[in-house]
């Protein structure tokens, strides 16, 4: 029983990181119909910049904040320089653009920083908390709490604020949104900033547990993408559920079946889900336009 609880804890912790990445995917997808494979690089940048700023003498909270701000700015730059000029390009081209961006960011990171593995101290110490025979790190609580707070924040933003509704309107119909006076360019900028910032936050929260290096982004991107697709692309609730589900499946597979195949389990579940629900768990059904 305590064993199950232990796996549950570790699953929820990684799941929270995946959920944050998946939420990042969702925000950009809603605003622009682009699946941004560079999402994982935002997570990496969050960790790397925080490590760098902290090592340079900045206090940890300030270092984390600067990492989030810088990454958000990079997200905006990416939108302006790479995504907006490619408006209307086919899906394959957009996939290649965002993967190209991701390779570019990786190359830049190893050039500016280095190729080593880094970390920084956990926010509330490393003493494990004992719960019912299992243990959980205080940092895990930070990660899980972070994912929930971000989700709630987004929910309030999208349903209760005018700006959030403007984003939703843009995702539903860009032209119609423009016609009622919504500045859709600003909405795009905002979405990329928000998404990159959330990605960086995930990196900041997770790095004390998972460590960071210039090449960790792609793993996060694949899992976050998988989580978002499992939940149904474009649905924030789906992203949250999908992300946590992928984390839990991984942890349970690693615990009870085989740690080598933990990544496989998540994808087998996705194949199975998509077989029965081609638009994910919470996805809307799309119709073909002739």
């Amino acid at each position, binding site marked *: 029983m305590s064993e199950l609880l232990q796996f549950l804890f570790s699953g929820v912790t990684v799941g929270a990181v995946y959920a944050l990445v998946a939420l990042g995917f969702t925000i950009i997808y809603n605003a622009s119909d682009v*699946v941004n494979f560079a999402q994982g690089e935002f997570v990496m940048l969050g960790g790397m910049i925080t490590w760098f700023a902290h090592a340079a003498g900045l206090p940890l909270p300030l270092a984390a904040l600067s990492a989030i701000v810088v990454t958000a700015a990079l997200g905006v730059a990416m939108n302006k320089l790479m995504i907006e000029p490619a408006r209307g390009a086919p899906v394959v081209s957009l996939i*290649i*653009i965002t993967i190209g961006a*991701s*390779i*570019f*960011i990786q190359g830049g990171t190893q050039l500016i920083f280095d190729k080593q593995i880094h970390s920084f101290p956990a926010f509330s110490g490393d003493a494990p908390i004992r719960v019912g025979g299992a243990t959980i790190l205080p940092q895990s609580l930070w990660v899980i709490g972070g994912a929930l707070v971000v989700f709630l924040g987004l929910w309030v933003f999208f349903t209760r604020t005018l700006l959030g509704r403007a984003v939703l309107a843009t995702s539903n119909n860009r032209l119609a949104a423009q016609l009622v006076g919504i500045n859709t360019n600003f909405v795009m900028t905002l979405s990329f900033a928000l998404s990159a910032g959330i990605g960086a936050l995930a990196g900041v929260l997770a790095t004390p547990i998972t460590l960071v290096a210039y090449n960790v982004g792609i793993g996060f991107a*694949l899992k976050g*993408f998988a989580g978002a697709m499992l939940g149904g692309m474009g649905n924030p609730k789906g992203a949250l559920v999908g992300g946590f589900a992928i984390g839990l499946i991984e942890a349970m597979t690693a615990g009870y079946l085989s740690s080598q195949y933990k990544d*496989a389990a998540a994808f087998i579940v996705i194949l199975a889900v998509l077989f029965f629900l081609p638009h994910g768990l919470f996805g809307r059904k799309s119709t073909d336009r002739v």
Partner: protein
Amino acid sequence: MMKISPKTATLLVLTALVAITPFFFPSGYYYRVGALIFVNGLAVTGIVILTGYAGQISLGHAGFAGIGGYACALAPVHWGIHPALAVVLGAAISAGLAYLVGRPILRLKGYYLGVATLGFGILVSMVLNNERDLTRGPDGIEVPELGLRAVLKDWGLNLSNGEFWYYFCGLFLIVGAWIALNLHSSPAGRALRALHGSEVAARTVGIDVPRMKLQAFVISAVYASVSGSLLALQNKFITPDVAGFMHSIEMVTMAVLGGVGSVLGAIFGAGILTLLPQVLTVFAEYEQMVLGLVMVLVMIFLREGLLPSILRRLRGRGE
């Protein structure tokens, strides 16, 4: 003047390139680079059939290359099959697997198809990485000698190792391109291009859309598999990286970068992306940044891909 069809023109250009470029090689090393371009070009020709003709995305085609490669490494050792037959066996396994997997996942569209194929590729690469008793894991495994070069030598055709693989892979590429070009103008190819335009419209004129998509998927899987086999036999060594996510992305990028709508364009893309790292080794530090930047810029400014854009510009100037 005699009019030549685009098909004949493509094949002539390809054959001429394969035959003539060696005269300009400053050293034997270039045979190896050429052979690599041909191997990649073969895989990419399969992507043209799947993505260029039929409009379907695969982010997991390297999985088939892995199957083809490991078939050549394992079948001769474990079952005593000749390496040449192992290529056929690998292609058959890939085709069978593509048939089984393709059925359910080709119902998906766009990004959903992307994630499903991605999952398939990752599963293959994981099996290759983890089943150490069979594949010896991430460190890779030796691949037996094909032995054809020795046969040719007996017949009086003495080629160096580099030369042999250059011409051998070149031959495969020309045959592969010939098949793909024939498919393009055949009823099946027309059906694929029709469903690319609109599946609903294709259905209304009586095209069996799921079956045609499955065919394209299986054919392109065979291309990837044979390319993986050739790579393994040529290097006499193979690692699970051949089935990795980055290799899948590389295939799609080569095809789209060069121009996924045409066989020659895609092969051109394979050439550029194979050569780029060789050129960039001088600036090893910037290699990744340049590669990423090239991918982004070509997709933004030359949307149909490099070759079609270049050709159009040339034609525009001629008029």
